[in-house]
Protein backbone atom coordinates (compact mmCIF):
# COMPACT_ATOMS: atom_id res chain seq x y z
CA UNK A 1 0.00 0.00 0.00
CA UNK A 2 3.00 2.30 -0.34
CA UNK A 3 1.68 3.54 -3.66
CA UNK A 4 -1.30 5.35 -2.13
CA UNK A 5 -1.43 8.16 0.37
CA UNK A 6 -3.11 7.22 3.67
CA UNK A 7 -6.77 8.18 3.02
CA UNK A 8 -6.79 6.55 -0.40
CA UNK A 9 -5.35 3.35 1.02
CA UNK A 10 -8.00 3.34 3.74
CA UNK A 11 -10.77 3.76 1.17
CA UNK A 12 -9.37 0.96 -1.02
CA UNK A 13 -9.17 -1.30 2.05
CA UNK A 14 -12.77 -0.54 2.98
CA UNK A 15 -14.05 -1.28 -0.51
CA UNK A 16 -12.08 -4.52 -0.64
CA UNK A 17 -13.96 -5.77 2.44
CA UNK A 18 -17.23 -5.78 0.47
CA UNK A 19 -18.44 -9.08 -1.00
CA UNK A 20 -17.49 -9.62 -4.63
CA UNK A 21 -14.92 -6.81 -4.61
CA UNK A 22 -11.27 -7.72 -5.10
CA UNK A 23 -8.18 -5.54 -4.77
CA UNK A 24 -8.36 -4.24 -8.34
CA UNK A 25 -12.06 -3.36 -8.31
CA UNK A 26 -11.59 -1.67 -4.94
CA UNK A 27 -8.87 0.48 -6.43
CA UNK A 28 -11.03 1.34 -9.42
CA UNK A 29 -13.94 2.37 -7.20
CA UNK A 30 -11.68 4.51 -5.03
CA UNK A 31 -10.26 6.38 -8.02
CA UNK A 32 -13.72 6.78 -9.49
CA UNK A 33 -14.78 8.59 -6.34
CA UNK A 34 -11.66 10.77 -6.39
CA UNK A 35 -12.38 11.74 -9.98
CA UNK A 36 -16.04 12.56 -9.50
CA UNK A 37 -17.29 15.90 -8.04
CA UNK A 38 -17.15 16.27 -4.25
CA UNK A 39 -20.96 16.22 -4.05
CA UNK A 40 -21.03 12.66 -5.36
CA UNK A 41 -18.81 11.52 -2.50
CA UNK A 42 -20.91 13.49 -0.04
CA UNK A 43 -24.13 11.90 -1.14
CA UNK A 44 -22.64 8.39 -1.12
CA UNK A 45 -21.35 8.91 2.42
CA UNK A 46 -24.71 10.31 3.48
CA UNK A 47 -26.58 7.37 1.99
CA UNK A 48 -24.29 4.92 3.79
CA UNK A 49 -24.72 6.59 7.17
CA UNK A 50 -28.48 6.97 6.76
CA UNK A 51 -29.08 3.40 5.77
CA UNK A 52 -27.33 2.16 8.92
CA UNK A 53 -29.14 4.62 11.17
CA UNK A 54 -32.67 4.32 9.87
CA UNK A 55 -33.02 0.71 8.80
CA UNK A 56 -34.24 -1.74 11.43
CA UNK A 57 -36.27 -4.92 11.60
CA UNK A 58 -40.02 -4.77 11.06
CA UNK A 59 -41.68 -5.43 14.41
CA UNK A 60 -43.91 -8.04 12.80
CA UNK A 61 -42.08 -9.95 10.05
CA UNK A 62 -38.45 -8.99 10.86
CA UNK A 63 -37.83 -7.83 7.29
CA UNK A 64 -35.66 -4.71 6.98
CA UNK A 65 -37.53 -1.43 6.95
CA UNK A 66 -37.21 2.21 8.01
CA UNK A 67 -40.59 2.22 9.74
CA UNK A 68 -42.17 0.36 12.63
CA UNK A 69 -44.09 -1.92 10.23
CA UNK A 70 -42.81 -2.73 6.73
CA UNK A 71 -44.99 -1.92 3.67
CA UNK A 72 -45.86 -5.60 3.21
CA UNK A 73 -47.10 -6.04 6.78
CA UNK A 74 -49.12 -2.81 6.44
CA UNK A 75 -50.78 -4.00 3.23
CA UNK A 76 -54.25 -5.16 4.30
CA UNK A 77 -55.20 -6.50 0.88
CA UNK A 78 -52.96 -9.53 1.31
CA UNK A 79 -54.09 -12.98 2.33
CA UNK A 80 -53.57 -13.23 6.09
CA UNK A 81 -54.00 -17.00 6.07
CA UNK A 82 -50.70 -17.60 4.27
CA UNK A 83 -47.28 -17.08 5.81
CA UNK A 84 -44.08 -17.66 3.87
CA UNK A 85 -40.89 -18.20 5.89
CA UNK A 86 -37.61 -17.22 4.23
CA UNK A 87 -33.97 -17.05 5.35
CA UNK A 88 -32.94 -13.55 4.25
CA UNK A 89 -34.50 -10.19 3.35
CA UNK A 90 -33.24 -10.67 -0.21
CA UNK A 91 -35.43 -13.77 -0.47
CA UNK A 92 -38.48 -11.57 0.16
CA UNK A 93 -37.39 -9.37 -2.72
CA UNK A 94 -37.05 -12.40 -5.00
CA UNK A 95 -40.51 -13.66 -4.04
CA UNK A 96 -42.08 -10.23 -4.47
CA UNK A 97 -40.52 -9.78 -7.88
CA UNK A 98 -42.10 -13.06 -8.96
CA UNK A 99 -45.51 -11.60 -7.93
CA UNK A 100 -46.94 -15.06 -7.40
CA UNK A 101 -47.41 -14.85 -3.65
CA UNK A 102 -49.96 -12.61 -1.96
CA UNK A 103 -49.64 -13.64 1.66
CA UNK A 104 -47.28 -12.34 4.34
CA UNK A 105 -43.63 -13.15 5.09
CA UNK A 106 -41.43 -13.95 8.01
CA UNK A 107 -37.66 -13.42 7.74
CA UNK A 108 -35.46 -15.72 9.85
CA UNK A 109 -32.18 -13.85 9.26
CA UNK A 110 -30.13 -17.00 8.74
CA UNK A 111 -30.29 -20.77 8.81
CA UNK A 112 -29.34 -23.29 11.48
CA UNK A 113 -25.62 -24.05 11.24
CA UNK A 114 -23.66 -25.31 14.27
CA UNK A 115 -20.38 -24.71 12.39
CA UNK A 116 -21.14 -21.00 12.25
CA UNK A 117 -22.54 -20.99 15.76
CA UNK A 118 -26.08 -20.34 14.55
CA UNK A 119 -28.73 -22.20 16.50
CA UNK A 120 -32.51 -21.70 16.63
CA UNK A 121 -32.01 -19.08 19.34
CA UNK A 122 -30.21 -16.85 16.82
CA UNK A 123 -33.14 -16.85 14.40
CA UNK A 124 -36.30 -14.79 14.74
CA UNK A 125 -38.34 -17.67 16.17
CA UNK A 126 -39.72 -15.81 19.19
CA UNK A 127 -41.33 -13.29 16.85
CA UNK A 128 -42.59 -16.09 14.62
CA UNK A 129 -44.25 -18.05 17.44
CA UNK A 130 -45.92 -14.89 18.69
CA UNK A 131 -47.40 -14.33 15.24
CA UNK A 132 -48.56 -17.91 14.91
CA UNK A 133 -50.42 -17.73 18.22
CA UNK A 134 -52.26 -14.51 17.63
CA UNK A 135 -52.77 -14.31 13.87
CA UNK A 136 -55.25 -16.06 11.64
CA UNK A 137 -52.53 -18.04 9.83
CA UNK A 138 -53.71 -21.34 8.35
CA UNK A 139 -50.74 -22.36 6.25
CA UNK A 140 -47.01 -21.85 6.70
CA UNK A 141 -44.86 -22.18 3.58
CA UNK A 142 -41.24 -23.07 4.30
CA UNK A 143 -39.10 -21.37 1.66
CA UNK A 144 -35.65 -21.83 3.24
CA UNK A 145 -32.92 -22.73 0.74
CA UNK A 146 -32.47 -26.31 -0.39
CA UNK A 147 -28.90 -26.69 0.91
CA UNK A 148 -28.14 -28.81 3.97
CA UNK A 149 -28.58 -25.91 6.41
CA UNK A 150 -31.80 -24.65 4.82
CA UNK A 151 -33.25 -28.15 4.74
CA UNK A 152 -32.40 -28.65 8.42
CA UNK A 153 -33.98 -25.32 9.32
CA UNK A 154 -37.14 -26.27 7.43
CA UNK A 155 -37.27 -29.62 9.22
CA UNK A 156 -36.85 -27.93 12.59
CA UNK A 157 -39.58 -25.39 11.86
CA UNK A 158 -41.96 -28.08 10.66
CA UNK A 159 -41.57 -29.92 13.97
CA UNK A 160 -42.09 -26.69 15.85
CA UNK A 161 -45.17 -25.50 13.97
CA UNK A 162 -47.11 -28.68 13.23
CA UNK A 163 -48.16 -29.28 16.88
CA UNK A 164 -49.90 -25.87 16.76
CA UNK A 165 -52.38 -27.31 14.28
CA UNK A 166 -51.18 -25.20 11.36
CA UNK A 167 -50.67 -26.70 7.92
CA UNK A 168 -46.96 -26.74 6.98
CA UNK A 169 -45.77 -26.93 3.37
CA UNK A 170 -42.35 -26.82 1.73
CA UNK A 171 -41.70 -25.14 -1.63
CA UNK A 172 -40.98 -27.65 -4.40
CA UNK A 173 -37.46 -28.27 -5.69
CA UNK A 174 -36.72 -29.50 -9.17
CA UNK A 175 -36.24 -28.55 -12.77
CA UNK A 176 -36.04 -24.81 -13.46
CA UNK A 177 -38.83 -23.60 -15.74
CA UNK A 178 -37.77 -23.36 -19.38
CA UNK A 179 -34.70 -25.58 -19.04
CA UNK A 180 -33.87 -28.92 -20.57
CA UNK A 181 -34.08 -32.15 -18.62
CA UNK A 182 -30.71 -33.32 -19.88
CA UNK A 183 -28.90 -30.50 -18.11
CA UNK A 184 -30.34 -31.28 -14.70
CA UNK A 185 -28.12 -33.23 -12.31
CA UNK A 186 -29.24 -36.58 -10.92
CA UNK A 187 -30.21 -35.26 -7.50
CA UNK A 188 -32.36 -32.45 -8.90
CA UNK A 189 -34.09 -34.85 -11.25
CA UNK A 190 -34.86 -37.24 -8.41
CA UNK A 191 -36.23 -34.38 -6.30
CA UNK A 192 -38.38 -33.32 -9.22
CA UNK A 193 -39.70 -36.85 -9.63
CA UNK A 194 -40.50 -37.13 -5.92
CA UNK A 195 -42.46 -33.89 -6.07
CA UNK A 196 -44.37 -34.65 -9.26
CA UNK A 197 -48.01 -33.63 -9.48
CA UNK A 198 -51.07 -34.89 -11.31
CA UNK A 199 -51.41 -33.40 -14.76
CA UNK A 200 -54.00 -32.83 -17.43
Amino acid at each position, binding site marked *: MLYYSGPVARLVDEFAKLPGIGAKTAQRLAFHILNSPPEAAQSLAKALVEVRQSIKRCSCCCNLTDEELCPICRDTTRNGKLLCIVEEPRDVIAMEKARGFRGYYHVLHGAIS*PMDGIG*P*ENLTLKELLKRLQSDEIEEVILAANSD*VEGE*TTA*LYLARLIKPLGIKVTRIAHGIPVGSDLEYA*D*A*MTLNKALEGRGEFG
Partner: protein
Amino acid sequence: MRVINVTLKNFRNYQEESFQPHQAINIITGSNAQGKTNLLESIYYTFRGRSFRAERDKDIIHWQNDTTTIRTGVLLNSRNVDIKWKIKENNKKLIINGIDTPRAELDHFGVVLFCPEDLYLVKGSPQERRKFLDNDVGSLNPGYSKTWRQYARVLTQRNTLLKEIRDKRTSQTQDMLEVWDEQLYRHGARVIYLRLQILKKLIPIARSIHHKITEGAEELQAKYLSSLALEPGLTEEQIYQIFFKTGQKMRPTEIQRCQTMLGPHRDDLSLSLNGIEARSFGSQGQQRTVTLSLKLSQLELWYREFGDYPILLLDDVLFELDHSRQSMLLDKINKVQTFITTSFTGGIENTIKGAGLLWQVNAGNLTAKEEL
Protein backbone atom coordinates in the same frame (compact mmCIF):
# COMPACT_ATOMS: atom_id res chain seq x y z
CA MET B 1 -12.80 -40.34 -24.57
CA ARG B 2 -9.46 -38.91 -25.54
CA VAL B 3 -7.10 -36.12 -24.56
CA ILE B 4 -6.17 -34.16 -27.69
CA ASN B 5 -3.81 -31.62 -26.21
CA VAL B 6 -2.57 -30.31 -22.90
CA THR B 7 -1.15 -26.85 -22.20
CA LEU B 8 0.42 -26.14 -18.84
CA LYS B 9 1.46 -22.80 -17.48
CA ASN B 10 3.38 -22.56 -14.20
CA PHE B 11 2.30 -26.03 -13.21
CA ARG B 12 4.80 -27.57 -10.76
CA ASN B 13 8.16 -27.51 -12.58
CA TYR B 14 6.62 -26.72 -16.00
CA GLN B 15 6.71 -23.02 -16.80
CA GLU B 16 5.18 -23.38 -20.24
CA GLU B 17 4.57 -26.71 -21.87
CA SER B 18 2.22 -27.94 -24.51
CA PHE B 19 1.85 -31.40 -26.01
CA GLN B 20 -0.42 -33.53 -28.17
CA PRO B 21 -0.59 -37.03 -26.72
CA HIS B 22 -0.95 -40.15 -28.84
CA GLN B 23 -4.48 -41.55 -29.00
CA ALA B 24 -3.38 -44.89 -27.53
CA ILE B 25 -0.34 -45.39 -25.34
CA ASN B 26 1.91 -42.60 -24.09
CA ILE B 27 5.03 -43.69 -22.25
CA ILE B 28 6.64 -40.85 -20.34
CA THR B 29 10.20 -41.56 -19.40
CA GLY B 30 13.06 -39.66 -17.79
CA SER B 31 15.30 -39.67 -14.73
CA ASN B 32 13.95 -39.16 -11.22
CA ALA B 33 12.58 -35.75 -10.21
CA GLN B 34 12.25 -34.43 -13.79
CA GLY B 35 8.44 -34.06 -13.80
CA LYS B 36 6.98 -37.31 -15.14
CA THR B 37 4.28 -37.70 -12.52
CA ASN B 38 3.50 -33.97 -12.75
CA LEU B 39 2.14 -34.57 -16.23
CA LEU B 40 -0.19 -37.30 -14.98
CA GLU B 41 -1.18 -35.07 -12.13
CA SER B 42 -2.20 -32.30 -14.53
CA ILE B 43 -4.43 -34.67 -16.50
CA TYR B 44 -5.96 -36.04 -13.30
CA TYR B 45 -6.56 -32.50 -12.07
CA THR B 46 -8.31 -31.61 -15.29
CA PHE B 47 -11.02 -34.20 -14.71
CA ARG B 48 -11.22 -34.30 -10.93
CA GLY B 49 -10.54 -30.71 -9.92
CA ARG B 50 -7.91 -31.74 -7.40
CA SER B 51 -4.53 -33.40 -7.23
CA PHE B 52 -4.00 -37.02 -6.25
CA ARG B 53 -0.92 -36.18 -4.19
CA ALA B 54 -0.86 -32.50 -3.18
CA GLU B 55 -2.77 -31.62 -0.03
CA ARG B 56 -3.10 -27.97 -1.00
CA ASP B 57 -3.46 -26.31 -4.39
CA LYS B 58 -0.50 -24.12 -3.51
CA ASP B 59 1.81 -27.08 -4.01
CA ILE B 60 1.00 -27.49 -7.69
CA ILE B 61 1.75 -23.88 -8.57
CA HIS B 62 5.26 -23.14 -9.89
CA TRP B 63 7.21 -21.75 -6.94
CA GLN B 64 7.89 -18.39 -8.60
CA ASN B 65 4.25 -17.71 -9.47
CA ASP B 66 0.85 -17.37 -7.83
CA THR B 67 -1.37 -18.76 -10.57
CA THR B 68 -1.29 -21.87 -12.69
CA THR B 69 -3.45 -22.83 -15.62
CA ILE B 70 -4.12 -26.25 -17.06
CA ARG B 71 -5.85 -26.28 -20.41
CA THR B 72 -6.91 -29.58 -21.90
CA GLY B 73 -8.63 -30.32 -25.18
CA VAL B 74 -10.77 -33.44 -24.88
CA LEU B 75 -12.75 -35.47 -27.35
CA LEU B 76 -15.88 -36.82 -25.65
CA ASN B 77 -18.46 -38.68 -27.74
CA SER B 78 -17.22 -36.95 -30.89
CA ARG B 79 -17.60 -33.57 -29.19
CA ASN B 80 -14.63 -31.27 -28.66
CA VAL B 81 -14.46 -29.95 -25.13
CA ASP B 82 -12.01 -27.33 -23.97
CA ILE B 83 -11.42 -27.66 -20.22
CA LYS B 84 -9.48 -24.95 -18.48
CA TRP B 85 -8.52 -24.68 -14.83
CA LYS B 86 -7.24 -21.44 -13.41
CA ILE B 87 -5.79 -22.18 -9.99
CA LYS B 88 -4.64 -19.78 -7.30
CA GLU B 89 -3.58 -20.55 -3.77
CA ASN B 90 -7.07 -20.07 -2.33
CA ASN B 91 -9.41 -20.28 -5.26
CA LYS B 92 -9.80 -22.10 -8.52
CA LYS B 93 -12.01 -21.63 -11.50
CA LEU B 94 -13.25 -24.14 -14.04
CA ILE B 95 -13.94 -22.84 -17.52
CA ILE B 96 -15.41 -25.23 -20.08
CA ASN B 97 -15.60 -24.00 -23.68
CA GLY B 98 -15.02 -20.46 -22.47
CA ILE B 99 -17.81 -20.47 -19.89
CA ASP B 100 -17.50 -20.59 -16.09
CA THR B 101 -18.85 -24.00 -15.15
CA PRO B 102 -19.68 -25.76 -11.86
CA ARG B 103 -17.45 -28.70 -11.01
CA ALA B 104 -20.29 -31.21 -11.18
CA GLU B 105 -20.02 -31.02 -14.99
CA LEU B 106 -16.77 -32.96 -14.72
CA ASP B 107 -18.60 -36.00 -13.38
CA HIS B 108 -19.16 -37.03 -17.00
CA PHE B 109 -15.43 -37.31 -17.71
CA GLY B 110 -13.78 -40.54 -16.69
CA VAL B 111 -10.25 -40.98 -15.43
CA VAL B 112 -8.76 -44.01 -13.71
CA LEU B 113 -5.49 -43.63 -11.84
CA PHE B 114 -3.24 -46.44 -10.71
CA CYS B 115 -0.27 -45.28 -8.64
CA PRO B 116 2.06 -46.90 -6.09
CA GLU B 117 -0.02 -45.55 -3.17
CA ASP B 118 -2.97 -47.60 -4.43
CA LEU B 119 -1.42 -50.65 -2.80
CA TYR B 120 -2.76 -49.24 0.46
CA LEU B 121 -6.18 -49.86 -0.97
CA VAL B 122 -5.66 -53.49 -0.01
CA LYS B 123 -3.26 -53.36 2.89
CA GLY B 124 -4.03 -49.95 4.37
CA SER B 125 -6.61 -48.77 6.88
CA PRO B 126 -10.36 -48.68 6.12
CA GLN B 127 -9.93 -44.99 5.38
CA GLU B 128 -7.95 -45.89 2.24
CA ARG B 129 -10.76 -48.12 1.01
CA ARG B 130 -13.34 -45.43 1.71
CA LYS B 131 -11.25 -43.11 -0.41
CA PHE B 132 -11.49 -45.75 -3.12
CA LEU B 133 -15.26 -45.98 -2.63
CA ASP B 134 -15.73 -42.22 -2.83
CA ASN B 135 -13.25 -41.29 -5.55
CA ASP B 136 -13.11 -44.34 -7.77
CA VAL B 137 -16.32 -46.27 -7.24
CA GLY B 138 -18.34 -43.10 -6.70
CA SER B 139 -17.21 -41.60 -9.98
CA LEU B 140 -19.13 -44.35 -11.79
CA ASN B 141 -22.38 -42.68 -10.78
CA PRO B 142 -22.58 -39.01 -11.81
CA GLY B 143 -24.80 -38.18 -8.83
CA TYR B 144 -22.52 -39.68 -6.21
CA SER B 145 -20.07 -36.87 -5.55
CA LYS B 146 -22.82 -34.35 -4.82
CA THR B 147 -24.61 -36.77 -2.50
CA TRP B 148 -21.35 -37.48 -0.69
CA ARG B 149 -20.51 -33.79 -0.29
CA GLN B 150 -23.90 -33.13 1.28
CA TYR B 151 -23.47 -36.04 3.65
CA ALA B 152 -20.01 -34.78 4.63
CA ARG B 153 -21.51 -31.36 5.33
CA VAL B 154 -24.24 -32.82 7.54
CA LEU B 155 -21.60 -34.86 9.35
CA THR B 156 -19.43 -31.83 10.14
CA GLN B 157 -22.46 -29.86 11.31
CA ARG B 158 -23.67 -32.70 13.49
CA ASN B 159 -20.25 -33.32 15.06
CA THR B 160 -20.00 -29.62 15.90
CA LEU B 161 -23.42 -29.82 17.54
CA LEU B 162 -22.42 -32.93 19.53
CA LYS B 163 -19.47 -30.99 20.90
CA GLU B 164 -21.69 -28.06 21.83
CA ILE B 165 -24.11 -30.38 23.59
CA ARG B 166 -21.33 -32.02 25.57
CA ASP B 167 -19.86 -28.68 26.56
CA LYS B 168 -23.40 -27.44 27.29
CA ARG B 169 -22.99 -24.41 25.08
CA THR B 170 -26.40 -24.64 23.48
CA SER B 171 -29.87 -24.61 25.00
CA GLN B 172 -32.08 -26.55 22.59
CA THR B 173 -30.12 -29.77 22.55
CA GLN B 174 -32.50 -32.66 22.06
CA ASP B 175 -34.77 -31.12 19.41
CA MET B 176 -31.86 -29.82 17.42
CA LEU B 177 -30.00 -33.12 17.43
CA GLU B 178 -33.11 -34.94 16.24
CA VAL B 179 -33.31 -32.69 13.20
CA TRP B 180 -29.66 -33.25 12.31
CA ASP B 181 -30.10 -36.99 12.90
CA GLU B 182 -32.91 -37.02 10.38
CA GLN B 183 -30.60 -35.33 7.84
CA LEU B 184 -27.76 -37.72 8.67
CA TYR B 185 -29.93 -40.80 8.14
CA ARG B 186 -31.45 -39.49 4.90
CA HIS B 187 -28.19 -38.51 3.23
CA GLY B 188 -26.25 -41.41 4.76
CA ALA B 189 -28.75 -43.97 3.49
CA ARG B 190 -28.47 -42.43 0.04
CA VAL B 191 -24.65 -42.65 0.06
CA ILE B 192 -24.71 -46.30 1.17
CA TYR B 193 -27.43 -47.15 -1.33
CA LEU B 194 -25.48 -45.62 -4.23
CA ARG B 195 -22.26 -47.37 -3.18
CA LEU B 196 -24.05 -50.72 -3.06
CA GLN B 197 -25.68 -50.13 -6.43
CA ILE B 198 -22.32 -49.48 -8.11
CA LEU B 199 -20.52 -52.29 -6.29
CA LYS B 200 -23.21 -54.73 -7.41
CA LYS B 201 -22.09 -54.10 -10.98
CA LEU B 202 -18.38 -53.58 -10.31
CA ILE B 203 -17.58 -56.62 -8.18
CA PRO B 204 -18.57 -59.32 -10.73
CA ILE B 205 -16.38 -57.60 -13.34
CA ALA B 206 -13.44 -57.39 -10.93
CA ARG B 207 -13.91 -61.08 -10.07
CA SER B 208 -13.81 -62.21 -13.66
CA ILE B 209 -10.80 -60.03 -14.46
CA HIS B 210 -8.98 -61.35 -11.41
CA HIS B 211 -9.84 -64.89 -12.40
CA LYS B 212 -8.33 -64.27 -15.82
CA ILE B 213 -5.16 -62.55 -14.58
CA THR B 214 -4.39 -65.35 -12.14
CA GLU B 215 -5.37 -67.97 -14.69
CA GLY B 216 -8.06 -69.32 -12.42
CA ALA B 217 -5.82 -69.75 -9.39
CA GLU B 218 -7.45 -67.07 -7.26
CA GLU B 219 -11.04 -66.14 -6.54
CA LEU B 220 -11.51 -62.51 -5.52
CA GLN B 221 -14.30 -61.72 -3.09
CA ALA B 222 -15.30 -58.18 -2.28
CA LYS B 223 -17.97 -57.26 0.22
CA TYR B 224 -19.25 -53.97 1.56
CA LEU B 225 -18.82 -53.88 5.33
CA SER B 226 -21.21 -51.42 6.88
CA SER B 227 -21.29 -49.97 10.37
CA LEU B 228 -25.00 -50.74 10.11
CA ALA B 229 -26.28 -54.32 9.97
CA LEU B 230 -27.38 -54.50 6.34
CA GLU B 231 -28.64 -57.44 4.36
CA PRO B 232 -28.27 -57.63 0.60
CA GLY B 233 -30.93 -56.14 -1.67
CA LEU B 234 -32.20 -53.39 0.60
CA THR B 235 -33.91 -50.30 -0.79
CA GLU B 236 -32.80 -46.82 0.18
CA GLU B 237 -35.84 -46.48 2.44
CA GLN B 238 -35.02 -49.73 4.25
CA ILE B 239 -31.42 -48.61 4.81
CA TYR B 240 -32.80 -45.36 6.20
CA GLN B 241 -35.02 -47.27 8.64
CA ILE B 242 -32.10 -49.39 9.86
CA PHE B 243 -29.89 -46.33 10.20
CA PHE B 244 -32.66 -44.60 12.16
CA LYS B 245 -33.17 -47.49 14.58
CA THR B 246 -29.48 -48.20 15.22
CA GLY B 247 -28.61 -44.52 15.32
CA GLN B 248 -31.02 -43.76 18.15
CA LYS B 249 -29.30 -46.28 20.43
CA MET B 250 -25.85 -44.93 19.67
CA ARG B 251 -26.67 -41.36 20.63
CA PRO B 252 -25.50 -41.19 24.27
CA THR B 253 -22.09 -42.60 23.30
CA GLU B 254 -21.90 -40.16 20.40
CA ILE B 255 -22.52 -37.15 22.65
CA GLN B 256 -19.85 -38.39 25.03
CA ARG B 257 -17.28 -38.78 22.28
CA CYS B 258 -18.44 -35.90 20.05
CA GLN B 259 -18.30 -38.24 17.10
CA THR B 260 -20.82 -39.75 14.74
CA MET B 261 -20.20 -43.47 15.21
CA LEU B 262 -22.42 -44.89 12.46
CA GLY B 263 -22.74 -44.17 8.77
CA PRO B 264 -20.98 -44.48 5.44
CA HIS B 265 -17.96 -42.57 6.79
CA ARG B 266 -17.28 -45.59 9.01
CA ASP B 267 -17.82 -48.30 6.43
CA ASP B 268 -15.25 -50.51 4.75
CA LEU B 269 -14.76 -52.87 1.84
CA SER B 270 -13.56 -56.37 2.64
CA LEU B 271 -11.31 -57.94 0.03
CA SER B 272 -10.32 -61.58 0.18
CA LEU B 273 -8.69 -64.21 -2.02
CA ASN B 274 -9.99 -67.77 -1.94
CA GLY B 275 -11.74 -66.90 1.30
CA ILE B 276 -8.64 -65.49 3.01
CA GLU B 277 -8.47 -61.82 3.86
CA ALA B 278 -6.12 -60.11 1.39
CA ARG B 279 -5.30 -57.26 3.76
CA SER B 280 -3.47 -59.32 6.38
CA PHE B 281 -2.57 -62.51 4.56
CA GLY B 282 -2.03 -61.58 0.92
CA SER B 283 1.50 -61.30 -0.42
CA GLN B 284 2.71 -58.01 -1.91
CA GLY B 285 2.19 -59.42 -5.39
CA GLN B 286 -1.32 -60.67 -4.60
CA GLN B 287 -2.29 -57.31 -3.16
CA ARG B 288 -0.99 -55.60 -6.26
CA THR B 289 -3.01 -57.93 -8.47
CA VAL B 290 -6.19 -57.24 -6.49
CA THR B 291 -5.64 -53.52 -7.01
CA LEU B 292 -5.05 -54.09 -10.70
CA SER B 293 -8.27 -56.09 -11.03
CA LEU B 294 -10.23 -53.36 -9.27
CA LYS B 295 -8.74 -50.66 -11.49
CA LEU B 296 -9.39 -52.59 -14.69
CA SER B 297 -12.95 -53.31 -13.63
CA GLN B 298 -13.51 -49.56 -13.34
CA LEU B 299 -12.45 -49.12 -16.96
CA GLU B 300 -14.80 -51.88 -18.01
CA LEU B 301 -17.80 -50.72 -16.00
CA TRP B 302 -17.35 -47.13 -17.18
CA TYR B 303 -17.44 -48.45 -20.73
CA ARG B 304 -20.61 -50.45 -20.07
CA GLU B 305 -22.34 -47.53 -18.38
CA PHE B 306 -21.32 -44.71 -20.68
CA GLY B 307 -20.27 -46.39 -23.92
CA ASP B 308 -16.76 -44.96 -23.85
CA TYR B 309 -13.50 -45.79 -22.09
CA PRO B 310 -12.08 -43.33 -19.55
CA ILE B 311 -8.48 -42.10 -19.59
CA LEU B 312 -6.03 -44.39 -17.78
CA LEU B 313 -3.09 -43.05 -15.80
CA LEU B 314 -0.41 -45.51 -14.68
CA ASP B 315 2.11 -43.87 -12.39
CA ASP B 316 5.20 -46.01 -11.88
CA VAL B 317 3.29 -49.26 -11.54
CA LEU B 318 3.73 -51.09 -14.83
CA PHE B 319 7.14 -52.51 -14.06
CA GLU B 320 6.14 -53.59 -10.60
CA LEU B 321 3.99 -56.25 -12.26
CA ASP B 322 5.34 -59.54 -13.54
CA HIS B 323 5.45 -60.33 -17.23
CA SER B 324 2.09 -62.06 -17.62
CA ARG B 325 0.28 -59.38 -15.63
CA GLN B 326 1.99 -56.70 -17.69
CA SER B 327 0.82 -58.21 -20.94
CA MET B 328 -2.67 -58.75 -19.52
CA LEU B 329 -2.77 -55.07 -18.66
CA LEU B 330 -1.42 -53.95 -22.02
CA ASP B 331 -3.90 -56.21 -23.74
CA LYS B 332 -6.79 -54.69 -21.77
CA ILE B 333 -5.83 -51.14 -22.58
CA ASN B 334 -5.56 -51.31 -26.33
CA LYS B 335 -8.80 -49.34 -26.65
CA VAL B 336 -7.98 -46.92 -23.85
CA GLN B 337 -5.87 -43.80 -24.04
CA THR B 338 -3.17 -44.44 -21.49
CA PHE B 339 -0.41 -42.41 -19.88
CA ILE B 340 2.41 -44.41 -18.32
CA THR B 341 5.30 -42.96 -16.35
CA THR B 342 8.46 -44.92 -15.82
CA SER B 343 12.16 -44.29 -15.47
CA PHE B 344 12.94 -47.54 -17.19
CA THR B 345 11.18 -48.78 -20.33
CA GLY B 346 12.41 -52.38 -20.11
CA GLY B 347 11.96 -53.12 -23.78
CA ILE B 348 8.23 -52.48 -23.64
CA GLU B 349 8.61 -50.37 -26.81
CA ASN B 350 8.76 -53.60 -28.77
CA THR B 351 5.61 -55.09 -27.25
CA ILE B 352 3.40 -52.20 -28.22
CA LYS B 353 4.81 -51.40 -31.61
CA GLY B 354 2.69 -49.03 -33.66
CA ALA B 355 0.39 -48.14 -30.81
CA GLY B 356 1.98 -45.26 -29.05
CA LEU B 357 4.54 -42.56 -28.43
CA LEU B 358 7.59 -42.41 -26.23
CA TRP B 359 8.08 -39.10 -24.43
CA GLN B 360 11.21 -37.85 -22.72
CA VAL B 361 11.04 -35.50 -19.72
CA ASN B 362 14.04 -33.45 -18.76
CA ALA B 363 13.77 -30.85 -15.98
CA GLY B 364 10.32 -29.64 -16.93
CA ASN B 365 10.82 -30.00 -20.68
CA LEU B 366 8.89 -32.57 -22.62
CA THR B 367 9.91 -33.89 -26.02
CA ALA B 368 8.43 -36.61 -28.19
CA LYS B 369 11.27 -39.08 -28.49
CA GLU B 370 10.03 -41.65 -30.93
CA GLU B 371 6.96 -43.16 -32.48
CA LEU B 372 6.56 -46.72 -31.29
